[in-house]
């Protein structure tokens, strides 16, 4: 069965420092992986997706993620955190046709001034 595990429930970084949000996946074949962000009282927004093309995926707002098959990881990074990045981030794997997807439990990102 396919699944994703987000290794940290909360991450705190200072503004201007790098961000690392960790995600490991479990899949019997090459997965389709995604990162979503959820700001308070706003809908989930797609940050980026991996679908077996380039292993380094660039997304919106300066985020990127690297697919590492040997480590079964798909960590999300950003070189310099901004206050507006404070939100909940979800790692997601596609498990069926179309929109049947599994979300991780989420990582709450806190940005310290």
């Amino acid at each position: 069965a396919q699944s994703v595990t987000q290794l940290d429930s909360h991450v705190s970084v200072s503004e201007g420092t790098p961000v690392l949000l960790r995600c490991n996946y479990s899949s019997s074949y090459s997965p389709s992986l995604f990162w979503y962000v959820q700001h308070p009282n706003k809908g989930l927004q797609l940050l980026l997706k991996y679908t077996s093309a380039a292993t380094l995926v660039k997304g919106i707002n300066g985020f990127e993620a690297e697919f590492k098959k040997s480590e079964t990881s798909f960590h999300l990074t950003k070189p310099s955190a901004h206050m507006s990045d404070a939100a909940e981030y979800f790692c997601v794997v596609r498990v069926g046709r179309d929109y049947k997807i599994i979300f991780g439990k989420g990582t709450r990102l806190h940005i310290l001034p």
Partner: protein
Amino acid sequence: DAGVTQSPTHLIKTRGQQVTLRCSPKSGHDTVSWYQQALGQGPQFIFQYYEEEERQRGNFPDRFSGHQFPNYSSELNVNALLLGDSALYLCASSLGTGGPEKLFFGSGTQLSVL
């Protein structure tokens, strides 16, 4: 252009009651998916509606049912509410079938069951 709109934004019910949540998809979209997000958890897929039919379903009991109307809007119905049904219910719309990157999410309906 309005995005995905859900109503109501908040709802309080008691155990055993029935509830109906509503979703209007983004203009031009014809597919609606529903998700349940419990506190501290990621959203879980409930089901997907396309052409007024349920196309895929997640691991939810029959108490959860839905409907899609000819104008593509959708309802989520939950019968015999349990305390554990308290959650944020998210609706997402898209055009036709495809991958999750095509989904546009609403802000959700917060359901509290007392």
